[in-house]
């Protein structure tokens, strides 16, 4: 598939996503996000035959929920699984794919949906670049068809269940528990981190990068000295496969920030939290802002935007890392990020309240 065709498909997906959200919002019969997601999940499952449904709808338990990764199809995941949960887009009909993406759209914000689809499209670009060079023996596959959707557990307006959508450089894990929709843990990434489509430059994680550079450069000398770690950080510390682990906070405390710096940090965090639907994201942002005085911001790498830098945000209910990959210090074309709530990944704390 060439880029032009991919672009047309991408545009169609975006248009569909927008229409899907609007249609659901207009319907008004399901006022909260969980009810909308339940309806969309049941609609998606209804399009599948029995065999597909069994694959797309595994049980929710401590093992199944951890099956996600940054890695592409064909590589064993960090948790040891050979394949993602669910059914991949390459294996469904156009009508089933439409229902699958409508389910995803029902839980995400418009910006979040666009970001997710831009990551998917980046992987399609990577497939077009890498596919022809790939050894015949390689099991690795990139590209849009290698993204999987799964529903873990029974869609319910009251009981806990999950939606997972992921592939190479993407693991959206949404836990639904009553009216709560929770996004942690979720992985985003991009390779290439910048590509052109229909004459437009697409940077799936460009806002994360630009807002972080603006924040580090807004700090005064003393704050920056505290923020900058004394060593290189070449990857995520709590990336895929590290569920349940906690590290010590490092960097500059946000309690030392001016109002403008705090505002910049909040907007940076929103790049991850805001992937989720607006109401759920707003509730989470309030939670995070309540813990802002105990939040730290750490940095490693260059200070000039356009060059490579790692950063980490660590608060009582938020943990974010952004890590350029690869061996060149200035490498910025391959990014991994992670978003966690180390006190409530998968809604475990919420479930015990």
């Amino acid at each position, binding site marked *: 598939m060439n880029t032009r065709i991919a672009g047309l498909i991408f545009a169609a997906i975006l248009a569909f996503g927008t229409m899907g959200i609007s249609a659901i919002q207009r319907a008004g019969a399901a006022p909260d996000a969980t009810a909308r997601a339940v309806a969309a999940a049941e609609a998606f499952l209804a399009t599948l035959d029995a065999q597909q449904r069994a694959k797309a709808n595994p049980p929710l338990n401590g093992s199944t929920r951890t099956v996600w990764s940054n*890695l*592409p199809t064909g*590589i*064993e995941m*960090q948790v*040891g699984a050979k394949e993602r949960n669910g059914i991949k887009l390459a294996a469904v009909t156009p009508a089933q794919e439409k229902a699958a993406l409508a389910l995803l759209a029902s839980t995400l914000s418009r910006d979040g949906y666009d970001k997710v689809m831009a990551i998917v499209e980046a992987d399609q670009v*990577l497939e077009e*670049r*890498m596919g022809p*060079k*790939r*050894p015949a*023996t*390689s*099991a*690795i596959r*990139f590209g849009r068809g290698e993204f999987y959707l799964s529903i873990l557990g029974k869609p319910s307006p009251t009981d806990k269940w999950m939606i997972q959508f992921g592939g190479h450089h993407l693991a959206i894990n949404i836990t639904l528990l009553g009216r709560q929709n929770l996004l942690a843990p979720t992985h985003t990434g991009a*390779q290439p981190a910048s590509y052109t489509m229909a004459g437009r430059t697409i940077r799936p994680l460009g806002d994360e990068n630009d807002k972080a550079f603006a924040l580090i450069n807004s700090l005064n000398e003393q704050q920056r000295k505290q923020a900058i770690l*004394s*060593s*290189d*950080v*070449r*990857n995520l*510390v709590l990336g895929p*496969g590290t569920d*349940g*682990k*906690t*590290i*010590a906070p*490092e960097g500059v405390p946000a309690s030392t920030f001016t109002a403008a710096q705090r505002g910049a940090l909040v907007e940076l965090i929103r790049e991850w939290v805001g992937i989720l639907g607006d109401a759920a994201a707003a509730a989470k942002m309030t939670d995070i802002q309540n813990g802002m005085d105990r939040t730290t911001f750490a940095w490693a790498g260059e200070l000039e935007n356009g060059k490579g830098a790692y950063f980490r945000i660590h608060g009582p209910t938020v943990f974010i890392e952004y890590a350029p*990959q*690869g*061996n060149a210090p200035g490498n910025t074309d*391959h990014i991994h990020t992670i978003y966690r709530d180390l006190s409530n990944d998968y809604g475990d704390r919420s479930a015990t309240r």
Partner: protein
Amino acid sequence: MTRTVATAIALALAIPAPAGAHRLDEYLQAARVLLERDRLLIEIDLTPGTSVAPAVIAAIDRDHDAAISPAEAKAYGLEILGDVTVAVDGRATALSLQRIEIPSPDEIREGMGTIQLEAAGAPGALAPGRHAVEFRNRHREESSVYLVNALLSRDGVTTVLSQQRDSRQSSAHIEYELAPTGSPIAWTSIAGIAFVALATFRRRLGVKPRALAREAAGVH
């Protein structure tokens, strides 16, 4: 013991890996260090880049049969640990291999396979208060980049006071605080045990726990 000792394709050893998808000429080794009251845990995730993968595969697959046996995996785990040194409060602490999982040679060759290693040390029963851990990883220094981070224990017993690393993160000096045994968590446990013991004693005397509770509350 090995995660994947899959049937490997001998021909694949001679096929060049694709460049550009993931790590290239570096061997990323990410270590996590956890100090508990009576043990030290070390986890290391090792991801060889495509350029260094052939040398790493050759070091693991010692019989060159294009498959990784449990014995080969264990031997490589011990080789890694031979390059790792730790000391608790200045005393060298030996590490024993607890687990090693090695992906298939094909996955390693693609630059996307991560070797997962866990090791434990027994520094002896540590008293509450400050303790220092020195960690150093010298495994394949010529081609490696490193990460090292102190983990926090889930029970809140361990607090990390500071962690100082060298610029490559191949070594770290980590200061921990271990909570006193009389911490709230410990007192809760002691109180629970005491209650059970007392209830058992009273039961032998024909007094049931519920009655015991009523007595304590002054209700008869």
